[in-house]
């Protein structure tokens, strides 16, 4: 076939041309079969060059285009779009990577790098000679979004989507909305309590007709793909109806004989099997915890509306996109870590926050009045060994704020802060200044010499070699030690596992691109936000929640989606259904089907990513990949190897 191919070789402002002689690359390919023009350019991705490419394609009727530049991860889509704007089918564009694969990899060998760049461009030319125009698949997208997690991020994303006109399912596993925020007392900087903030959001959500709120709801299976996710949700009943409230409810709770530690208060208090977290919680009805209920019937005697015969329900949800907002767990210190577990007077920051809220006149812990507090920073964060190498970002500001709150509420409290360098970034710096002025004492340890907590029979002692007072050993005998614990990924990874969401080095969910695409994931249609992606404070969580909302919205808004036509195809005549491809597929895109009397494999085009992993496992060679056919790949290999002496001297 006579092709008219245009080749553009990018300097990348020196990133490539410092090591690859781009002029020589051009000269080496300009006379190749089918090549109509070859040019070099300072920045192929720049506007001016894009314009020039469009004109070249239009004016010369080019039917194949190659840009030799950076990784296709960066600019494949850019140049496909250029082809499209010029009226050329975008699959007649082929990308050659001569930066990551050549100039950066071989900066020590310029001649060799130039040779390798020539081979790579030649193989791209071989591929584009065989390229066929392709049309993207189009399929409908369900205009609804399912949100996993009803904490502050999930609630705010639900509200955002609802206000943009998108139906939402807000799915919360626990019996109550509000997540961690509902456990916090006064918030920095609004001065509201966490409960108030949650209650306002909940009130707004109740007004929205296009929001379906589900509590006690667990996603038990997820299938489908972008535009058409199918979720099965198991909803545990509350057993307590709304009309069981007020005094009657309080009496029922009092009558319950079962007592267990209250996890909402980090086990500082006890709750019954029939319970609510706090009077302003959401929904405002109580719930019976059937794992501990003895079905004694005492509560039913007082509140006959209580219905222990309620049964769990399985609900089917169909959504075009799934937004994951499953949040974090507070770090639990190991036994003996800074005295944790050795003394009941060593507690964590979340426990301390509940303690402030639960006390009124004076700060009392385990029957003892607390006046001197030692705060030990970076517990479970910035660890030299283990998984938690990262900084949890929220804790410095959070503990300083709590220390100020405790002082305001109880008056006679002095805090000793054992830090590793304060990180009150941005305007939060002012809170640190306020705390210093208020008389809080800040100490800082050397990186390799953390403070030591001594647990004695009747006392606690914290020792530090302090940088800030001139390398003196300072010790304090506090009434309470607060371990400033950070955020860790949720131990419960059920949602992540359902959708095979990738995790980063820190085990939080990973975004596509840390800088520019922080809420999208490699699984099309699955969006992440809030602290499940990494530690965040409330403002940052809400920003990411709304950002996620607008991204999900733009996927489902039009009711139709376009997908890459690069998928595996099955040769129905050759396939003998052995199941090898089915076993190999990481995306569950292959199923067995019957054609006439024969069992063969079938590809689900909207799930297939075109990864090609099924091709080599097929024993009868019945699978081809669109745009990467055996013929194309072999021609590329021939071109790559073609000019090597060993191949040409036969």
């Amino acid at each position: 076939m006579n092709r008219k191919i245009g080749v553009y070789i990018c300097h990348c402002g020196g990133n490539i041309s410092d090591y690859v002689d781009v002029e020589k690359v051009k000269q080496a390919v300009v006379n190749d079969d089918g090549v109509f023009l070859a040019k070099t350019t300072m920045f192929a991705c720049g506007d001016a060059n894009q314009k020039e490419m469009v004109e070249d394609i239009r004016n010369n009727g080019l039917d194949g285009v190659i840009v030799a530049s950076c990784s296709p991860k960066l600019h494949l889509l850019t140049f496909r779009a250029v082809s499209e704007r010029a009226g050329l089918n975008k699959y007649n564009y082929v990308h050659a990577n001569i930066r990551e694969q050549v100039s950066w990899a071989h900066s020590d060998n310029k001649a060799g790098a130039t040779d390798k760049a020539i081979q790579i461009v030649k193989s791209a030319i071989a591929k584009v000679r065989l390229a066929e125009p392709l049309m993207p698949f189009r399929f409908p997208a369900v205009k609804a979004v399912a949100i996993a997690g009803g904490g502050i991020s999930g609630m705010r994303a639900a509200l955002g989507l609802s206000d943009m006109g998108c139906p939402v399912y807000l799915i919360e596993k626990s019996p109550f909305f509000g997540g961690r925020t509902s456990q916090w007392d006064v918030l920095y900087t609004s001065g509201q309590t966490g409960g108030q903030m949650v209650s306002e959001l909940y009130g707004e959500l109740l007004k929205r007709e296009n929001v379906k709120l589900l509590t006690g709801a667990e996603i038990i299976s997820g299938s489908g793909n972008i535009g058409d996710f199918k979720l099965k949700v198991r909803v545990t009943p509350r057993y307590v109806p709304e009309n069981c409230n007020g005094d009657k409810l309080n009496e029922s709770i009092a009558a319950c004989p079962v007592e267990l530690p209250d996890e909402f208060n980090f086990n500082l208090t006890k709750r019954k099997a029939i319970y609510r977290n706090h009077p302003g919680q959401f929904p405002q009805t109580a719930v019976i915890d059937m794992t501990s209920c003895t079905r004694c019937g005492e509560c039913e005697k007082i509140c006959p509306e209580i219905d222990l015969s309620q049964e769990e329900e399985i609900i089917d949800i169909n959504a075009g996109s799934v937004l994951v907002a499953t949040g974090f767990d507070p770090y639990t210190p190991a036994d003996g870590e800074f005295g944790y577990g050795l003394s009941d007077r060593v507690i964590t920051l979340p426990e301390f926050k509940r303690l402030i809220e639960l006390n009124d006149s004076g700060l009392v812990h385990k029957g003892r009045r607390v006046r001197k507090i030692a705060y030990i920073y970076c517990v479970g964060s910035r660890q030299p060994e283990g998984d938690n190498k990262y900084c949890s970002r929220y804790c410095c500001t959070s503990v300083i704020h709590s220390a100020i709150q405790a002082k305001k509420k109880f008056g006679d409290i002095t805090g000793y802060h054992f830090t590793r360098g304060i990180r009150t970034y941005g305007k939060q710096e002012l809170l640190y200044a306020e705390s210093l002025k208020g008389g809080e004492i800040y100490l800082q340890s050397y990186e390799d010499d953390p403070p030591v907590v001594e647990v004695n029979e009747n006392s606690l002692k914290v020792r530090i070699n302090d940088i800030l007072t001139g390398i003196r050993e300072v010790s304090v005998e506090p009434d309470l030690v607060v371990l400033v614990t950070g955020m860790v990924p949720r131990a419960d990874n059920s949602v992540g596992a359902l959708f095979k969401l990738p995790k980063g080095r820190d085990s939080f969910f990973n975004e596509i691109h840390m800088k520019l695409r922080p809420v999208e994931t490699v699984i099309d249609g699955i969006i992440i936000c809030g602290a499940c992606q990494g530690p965040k404070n409330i403002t940052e969580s809400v920003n990411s929640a709304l950002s996620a909302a607008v991204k999900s919205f733009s996927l489902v808004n039009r009711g139709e989606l376009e997908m890459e036509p690069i998928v595996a195809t099955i040769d129905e005549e050759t396939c003998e259904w052995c199941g090898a491809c089915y076993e190999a597929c990481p995306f569950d895109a292959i199923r067995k089907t019957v054609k006439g009397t024969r069992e063969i494999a079938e590809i689900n085009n909207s799930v297939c990513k075109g990864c090609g992993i099924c091709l080599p496992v097929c024993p009868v060679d019945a699978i081809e990949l669109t745009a990467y056919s055996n013929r194309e790949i072999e021609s590329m290999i021939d071109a790559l190897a073609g000019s090597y002496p060993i191949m040409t001297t036969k």
Partner: protein
Amino acid sequence: MSDEIRAASYDALVIGGGIAGGEAALDLANNGYKVLLVEKDLSIGGKMILLSKVFPTLDCAACITTPKVSEISRHPGITVFTGAEVTSIEKKGEREFETAVTKRPRYVVEEDCTACQLCEEVCPVVVHDEYQYRLVGRKAAFIPFSIASPRVAAIDIENCTLCGACEKACPPKCIDFTQETEKYIIKTGTVIVATGFKLFDPLKIPRYGYGVYKNVLTSMEMERQLAPTRPFNTILRPGDGKMPDRIAYVLCTGSRDDTIGNPVCSQICCMYSLKQAQLLMGALPMADVTIYYINIRSFGKGFEEFYEQAKGMGISFVKGKVGKITETETGNLILRYEDINENRVMEEEHDMVVLAVGVLPNTDPLSFFRNGELKADQFSFVDQAEVLSSPARTSVKGVFVAGTASGPMDIPDSILSAGAASSEAISYLKQ
């Protein structure tokens, strides 16, 4: 100036074409809204497009910004005005904003310019290149920088001598000295303020000698030296062109400092300094790099690991604030500082000093509304009326803030805040 006032209407006005404004404009346009993006500068891309690499991924900033910028400039739903400024905004009612926009003449017909640079070649006037942070010169007829969008020449009329050489040299004859300032009244349903930040001016701290000692640079000047479109193609100290081998970073220059009126932590300087230090170790393998700091604040995703990586590469860290810098006869610099870890006052000689300058508010948006309806916070950033539950909302309903206009933040946080602003803007338009 022509008296004609042109009228136009769009669904949304986005003020500022940096990474936050650009992202917000794309979010809106991708959902079918018509957007006008007004940029004061001659190119969109903001400060990000001028950076070297980004932390902690060490992606080339130009390489990840250009596709965004290109997507913005070719999006059918987005109209871009460069060299244009908002002079006033009036809220006539809900979803009725009227904005006066002034577009300065470029003296070049944008559609016809091919960026051939012949005008640049023949122009006899040389002035400091502000896009290279004054490290090198440019002509009065010039293309702002190689990856500018639009990549179109402009005439710097302040410095132009009207010699006419460029007019004669221009092949498509697109230079037009008769162009005048254009005035517009833009009607939109919502406004997003993404006006970015200003860098601290180190002349305000005379004891660091910036502007007097030639080898004291700002971090943005170092960004340009490290960028792929760098002026020298290597690292040189400006005083004598020597390749430096003992480089110091002075953190918190103009941040966390009540004495110059900015108690706020700028949030990005620790990280960009760690990044630059690592790039310097790559560019100048024999050089020593020392970072003088109060606290290293590597708080974001992957940041602490990046800090550890910097330590592993052999970058030195000294906990202590630099009090004073003096120059030696050779152009080297002596830093006097308190080494807090060692508890003593020390002096150390370096041959190049980089001042890690902080983030200050851009106060332009505060004068957009005649009666000060758009409120500022105590530091003159745009106030976030509901900072926890709706961080993009401002004191004016229907006006939203994105990126560093509301306070210091890094690129991912700017992107997230832009997403929040566009989400709220769509909700507001649909009310």
